[in-house]
């Protein structure tokens, strides 16, 4: 699917297959939260983002309302994606909100701020995907941090 933020003109594309995969992984951890790293690449004009893959954390702690992941053990995967022709890179994070809507919490906003303030991370516009899911419903919320504000893709 292709999503856009009309107001700022940025768009992203993500395959249904990847979304289904993230949802299935998220469901196996239900009712606890779970998440991972989003991998993708920007178009030549840097106005379009294509999210292609995920890396799952090897180390994490989770409860129904909290998810903490570590980067330990994912370094090689990051390097492998970067070595591909399209130079796929870390572009953001995803996590689930079990039995809840895909709206960013204060902790999520704080995490985004940590990303943009991390010198090693060097991405100015991290993307956040939240999957709100229950036994019967699913809702995806994609957000990007742009000029000190979080925008939702529609």
């Amino acid at each position: 699917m292709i999503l856009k933020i009309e107001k700022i003109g940025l768009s992203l594309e993500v395959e249904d297959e990847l979304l289904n995969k993230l949802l299935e992984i998220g469901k196996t951890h239900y009712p606890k939260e779970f998440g991972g790293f989003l991998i993708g690449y920007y178009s030549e004009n840097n106005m379009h983002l294509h999210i292609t893959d995920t890396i799952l954390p090897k180390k994490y702690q989770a409860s129904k309302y909290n998810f903490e992941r570590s980067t330990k053990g994912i370094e090689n995967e990051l390097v492998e994606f970067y070595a591909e022709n399209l130079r796929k890179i870390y572009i953001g994070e995803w996590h689930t909100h079990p039995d809840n809507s895909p709206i960013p919490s204060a902790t999520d906003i704080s995490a985004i701020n940590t990303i943009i303030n991390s010198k090693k991370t060097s991405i100015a516009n991290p993307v956040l995907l939240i999957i709100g899911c229950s036994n019967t419903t699913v809702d995806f919320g994609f957000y990007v941090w742009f000029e000190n504000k979080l925008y939702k893709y529609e």
Partner: protein
Amino acid sequence: MDKNKHLESVISTHQITKEKTLFDKYVKKKNEVKEALEENYGSDLYYPFNSGSYAKNTAINTKFDFDLVSPFKRNAFGSNGTLKEMYEDVYYFLYEKYKDVAEVKKQKVSIGLEFYADSDGDVIKIDVVPGRELSQDQYREDENLNLYVYYKYGNIDAGSERIKTNVKAQINNIKDRATAEKDSIRKIIRLLKVWKNTKYIYPTKSFFLELITIKAFDSKSITGSIWDKLETVLQYIRDNVTKESFTQKDPGNSSNDLADTLTSTEKQQLSDDMKNMLERIEENDENLKTYFPENTKFKKEDTNNNQYGKNSGMPIPPPKLNFG
């Protein structure tokens, strides 16, 4: 060039909702023709219906296909009446009725009405497809019809052949798949129609392109971006349409092979066109714009130049992050 972005723009600028006024004119004209047929043929005619691309959810706004299928009763033209007589009768009726306001043409299985441009310069085209039930009252049961072939249609000879089919089954087959798989089948069909529309006259019918697209999706796993999917379908057509063993089953009658609606020369032309297109796009992305042009009438210029921030080197995620 971002091929996916371009193709998405091609699809969005060809959305039928963008030409609402023209579309409404088509619907109005189609209803007028339908009412004229009903008034003239009375109880000899079942309910005429639209079988064009709008009915199948695969329409584009640069060419509205409005095909008005007119199902006649078996004895509408006498118990010994032929399909040819049916076709000629409908032609003469439409000719007399519309000769002053439209060009009325005999076509492969239909009669084409091309209304002269109105004050806005819009030309409305409606194709009337006369069909007759196989035996008295049988249409109510199974909706099968015999169509008359006015002139040579691929390998189907003029006059000597009749096509037995179920138009409603044809519509539903395509509509169901195009609606259920709107990010894949529907988009690829619309793109192929945009390509076909770049050619003045092309022997391959849109109906054939719709069905071969569905067949491609059924024959192999087609995934990835919109360009990945389009490329795979183009390759499928290139590699398969000329094969001796290639068949294209009519969803309205499994005994009909729609591959017969193209001669071997026309199939070769289709395959060669796919080959050339793939090679030219491979040489230069920009050629995609020639084969699949946006509808410039509805092209929105980007009003801002915002970009995702450029990164230098490989970004490393922060070692620990907490989400709630």
